[in-house]
């Protein structure tokens, strides 16, 4: 490697000197992440002329900080109002919003902030140390292996459907059908787009996300005067004790934070994969290894920790292929690539020899931004949680107007605003009839990716299905997939048996007593 302790120190000093640009970028990023429809990518595109005018280190610090902060920001509305700000926060709604309904919004926010910042911090530091190895991950996770990774995420539909399997599966399939809209991945022929140009590239995620979660939730809110039930209003008032309880819970689940952030890091390294996949897979994994899988979805702290640490772990991962091989790992990394190339920075392995300050400086800026984020946002949890006390007659119009603008902002199609409303109605009906909107969303997000990797694998194998089981890494992943289905089921059966024994034991004892 082309750096030593002196360089390390100078990079740390340089990063600290850029605090002036990191702080506004973090604040802007949190805001952008919290508004559904706005993303780091479209914000950076808008601000591209500004970043091109900055010197390269400042520009990168600004972009990286904004990018990381959006992942944290996305969790805030997911917890408070059941509306994920970004696709990566969709899994956070499952338990985060349930905590809010129980008057534990502040605890959930603290869990989200700590998991996000610690997850991001750990992975950004780890990336500096493990970069040569991480660069190889993309070489091992090819289409065949990615099919298994996608199935990991899709299995979550089954987990969500545990209470009512039929409805869960119907919702999942409905999502997969919507996900199949758009041009086919091989020849680019439009399919089920009904002549709508705006659907040729598939159903856009942002209007679907906004409609299914934000608009449908806003419709539901109209039926009540406050977000939380009256019984939870007192619990929802700001108490520092809740912040401390959130910190205690974060400490309790420190191991979960670490390993799910590494799940995010590894998924982020694969070009084309991203925060949505990472958070669903991490949630599913956390549930699989939990001793109490049935607690998930009912306001269980690990259900907030896992997706939030994973979607922030992705931030470092997505930069690895850009730095190591000169290929961006995601859409935000692609914008960064433009800026780097504009400044004449040669990407790829030579970057570490010719410009180690740039290559490693990015991860130092990332580390700094997570530290800034933690100290900026943690005290605010107390105040943010009070959003749930705002009357819905004020909140609903605000949410509707912001989300409709958000639906437009991503692609600047008026069509997307209408699409968001259509998904809003679908989401509302789903909620009223107890179909899970997250199951629909998983289908929409993972379905096209699953199809893409599957078709590619089959084409490589020339139609032979055994190609899916032709690699060692892939087979290990398949074994995990099977385990992830069986393990919770076996645990649940065991617990059920235990409960039955406990129920039957007293009477049995009474019955067995000798007269």
């Amino acid at each position, binding site marked *: 490697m082309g750096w030593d302790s002196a360089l390390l120190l100078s990079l740390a000093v340089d990063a600290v000197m850029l605090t002036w640009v990191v702080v506004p970028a973090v604040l802007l990023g949190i805001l952008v992440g919290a508004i559904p429809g706005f993303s780091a990518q479209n914000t950076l595109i808008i601000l591209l002329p500004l970043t091109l005018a900055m010197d390269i280190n400042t520009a990168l610090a600004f972009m990286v900080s904004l990018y990381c902060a959006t992942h944290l920001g996305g969790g805030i509305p997911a917890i408070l109002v059941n509306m994920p700000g970004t696709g990566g926060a969709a899994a956070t709604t499952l338990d985060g919003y349930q905590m809010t309904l129980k008057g534990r919004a502040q605890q959930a926010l603290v869990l989200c902030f700590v998991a996000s910042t610690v997850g991001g911090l750990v992975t950004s530091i780890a990336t500096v140390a493990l970069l040569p190895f991480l660069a190889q991950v993309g070489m091992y996770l090819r289409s065949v292996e990615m099919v298994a990774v996608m199935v990991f995420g899709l299995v979550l539909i089954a987990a969500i459907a545990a209470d009512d399997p039929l409805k869960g599966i119907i919702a999942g399939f409905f999502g997969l059908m919507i996900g199949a809209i758009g041009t086919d991945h*091989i020849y680019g022929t439009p399919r089920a787009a009904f002549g709508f*140009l705006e659907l040729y590239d598939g159903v856009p995620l942002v209007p679907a996300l906004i409609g299914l979660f934000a608009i449908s939730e806003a419709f539901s809110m109209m039926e009540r005067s406050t977000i939380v039930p009256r019984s939870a209003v007192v619990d929802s008032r700001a108490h520092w004790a809740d912040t401390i309880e959130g910190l205690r819970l974060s400490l309790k689940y420190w191991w979960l934070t670490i390993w799910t952030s590494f799940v995010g890091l590894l998924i982020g390294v694969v*070009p084309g994969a991203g925060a949505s996949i990472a958070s669903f897979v991490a949630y599913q994994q956390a549930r699989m290894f939990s001793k109490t899988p049935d607690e998930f979805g009912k306001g269980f702290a690990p259900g907030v920790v896992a997706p939030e640490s994973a979607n922030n772990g992705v931030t470092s991962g997505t930069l690895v292929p850009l730095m190591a091989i000169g*290929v961006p790992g995601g*859409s935000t990394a*692609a*914008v960064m690539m433009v800026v780097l190339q504009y400044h004449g920075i040669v990407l790829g392995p030579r970057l570490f020899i010719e410009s180690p300050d740039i290559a490693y400086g990015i991860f130092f800026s990332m580390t700094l931004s997570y530290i800034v984020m933690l100290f900026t946002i943690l005290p605010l949890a107390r105040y943010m949680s009070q959003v749930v006390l705002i009357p819905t007659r004020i909140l609903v119009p605000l949410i509707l107007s912001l989300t409709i603008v958000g639906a437009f902002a991503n692609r600047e199609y008026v069509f997307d605003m209408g699409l968001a409303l259509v998904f809003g109605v679908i989401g509302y009906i789903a909620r009223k009839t107890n179909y899970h909107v997250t199951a629909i969303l998983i289908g929409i997000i993972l379905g096209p990716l699953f199809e893409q990797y599957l078709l*590619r694998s089959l084409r490589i194998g*020339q139609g032979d299905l055994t190609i899916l089981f032709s690699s060692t890494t892939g087979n290990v992943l398949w074994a995990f997939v099977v385990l992830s289905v069986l393990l919770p089921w076996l645990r649940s059966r065991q617990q059920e048996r235990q409960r039955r024994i406990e129920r039957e034991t007293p009477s049995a004892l009474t019955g067995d007593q000798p007269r």
Partner: protein
Amino acid sequence: MDHTTRISRRALCGGMAAAGLLAGFTPGLPLSRAVAQSYPQRNFRVIIPTGQGGGAERLARAFDDAWSKLLNQQFEYTFHPGAAGQIGYELFVKQREADGYNLLFGNMGPEMIMYAVQKPDYRFPEDFVYFSRTDIDDSCIFVRTDSPYKDLKSVVEAAKKNPVNVAVSRIPHPASIGMLALGEATGSTYNLIPYGGGNPTYVAVMNGEADIGALPITGVLSLSSQFRVLGVFNRENIFADITGNAPTVNAAFGTSIPDLYSSRAWAVHAAWADANPEDFALLERTSQEAHASEAFRDAFVKTGAPVESLKYGNRQVCTEYAMAMLDLAKRYEPVLSAQR
């Protein structure tokens, strides 16, 4: 009493002349243009029918570094990938106003093939015209540096025994046609696997998922530490010195496969160009000047791409190339579309 200020004809003429003279002396602005400065008066909006961060964006931004100075206006980009470029084109033709401020920066090769295969609901050259070609990007066959394939002949020999997996950006693409034509000419078989863009295609070759890759050469050369170019689909390899004298496919096999290069160009609505010949001429002239400028070349070199690929072409050159691509696509239509 008449309160209207009256200006004599002489005073009016004198004032106009003075204003014209003043404008004529504006540094860097030719007199003729300064007098007739009615276009352009606001920023240009450019549709790029591929994704953010790709070769098209790099090239467009490098080009507008020079062009925006000549036009005194900035360029704003939107990216509409998907359906092999069809979304961007449909959007440009049907939803963007034909006012000379809406431009498209397209990759004529693959996008004309898409047009021939998908038969979308717009017409070329009736609805839009390419008027300024920026580059010629030869299609090439490449492998990763440690690949067992040392040259083109070893690839063809292997493909005669078993189909060789080829990573391509899209099925309707000049490089894909090149592979099909090579197979046809040598009796070898290639299994084309589309990855939907240059970046994922590079990764597929790097990680060994595909045996070889077929893509435009400039992106491959910008990752020269990872890849080795085995051959190009052109009459001449203009990058011979940086590709280790990789041969042309035709020279290696005695075939007569046509030149299969990608070529990016600026396009504008045909209706506007025909109705506003002077303004259109301004776009043509300034784009040519921008292409010849040092500013553009310097910015292009910074992206790591080879400057040899920069070849200007006017409207006629662009149209001829686009029509030739249409003919070629029709020839291979059954295998480029889902008609098999």
